[in-house]
């Protein structure tokens, strides 16, 4: 897959950074505005899906290898569970919001562990969604290659 024309490639490489920035914004402000880890993660994944459409799979594979992607996926999940366990260690109970005394509401630092969980969820969702789409898009190619050989 060689990708699309120069126009699409240029625009998508311009826009990709902005999409990632927007995804980070949605994740970080998940506790203040609509959005959150899941929505932001989907946006992050969609930026790479756009790159995959514009530049082809090989390019994205170089940019974000599958092994790294699946590691990020696991890391997000472990981080989320660890935040929950930290609540057990430092607070009263599992998933306890042990940082909740910091900050004032309607500020960025205001909800204790919720933004941290959002970041972990964003990482997990972004990585795994991209993984799903990438792997599903390679399925057919593998089989057709097999037949040719």
């Amino acid at each position, binding site marked *: 897959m060689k990708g699309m*024309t*120069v*126009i699409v*490639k*240029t*625009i998508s*490489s*311009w826009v*990709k*950074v*902005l999409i*990632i*920035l*927007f995804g*980070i*914004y949605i994740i*970080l*402000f998940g506790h203040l505005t609509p959005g959150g880890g899941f929505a932001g993660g989907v946006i992050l994944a969609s930026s790479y899906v756009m*790159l995959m459409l514009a530049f082809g799979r090989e390019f994205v594979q170089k*940019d974000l290898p599958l092994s790294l992607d699946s590691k990020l996926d696991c890391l997000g999940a472990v981080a989320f569970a660890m935040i929950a366990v930290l609540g057990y260690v430092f607070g009263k109970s599992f998933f306890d919001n042990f940082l909740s005394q910091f900050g004032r509401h309607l*500020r*960025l*630092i205001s909800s204790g562990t919720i933004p941290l969980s959002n970041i972990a969820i964003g990482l997990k969702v972004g990585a795994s969604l991209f993984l799903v789409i990438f792997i599903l898009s390679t399925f057919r190619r593998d089989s057709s290659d097999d037949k040719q050989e």
Partner: protein
Amino acid sequence: MRRSIYLVLTFIIWILLTWPFADGTVDLQVVVAGIIASAFVAIIFHDILPKEHHVFVSPIRIFWFLVYVPVFFYYVTKANFDVVYRALHPQMPIKPGIVKIKTNLKSDSAITALANSITLTPGTLTVDLTEDGYLYIHWINVKSDDVEQATCLIAQRFEWFIKKIFE
């Protein structure tokens, strides 16, 4: 160099997204988060950005860009009225077709800007482009199917500015 340019760019966009000056003061948390986020994006993802980053630091190019904006809007408005005229005219004086034009622009961003300018102008639409600098344009009212002449009519007016901006 490239990283710092993109850091500033993304930071500006972050400020526009979040707007931390709402109640008279500056919300430092948001600004710091913005710096971290833009630094993160700029450092990790800079390599995929296009190479024409010098546009943002050259005052002359920015000046030409600022000039280009009203010119472009003038052409767009004119073309709008032209299309409205053709659409509302009882006999529909249109002659649709695809013409081929040639461009001398070399860099990717410049070609993209030209193609998008042509697409944004009502009546013309970039369909495809080839490696050796030819663009296929769908035109609502084909005045000439000669490459040179069509280039004159469609692309020349933008190309000059875009050359000033990008090359």
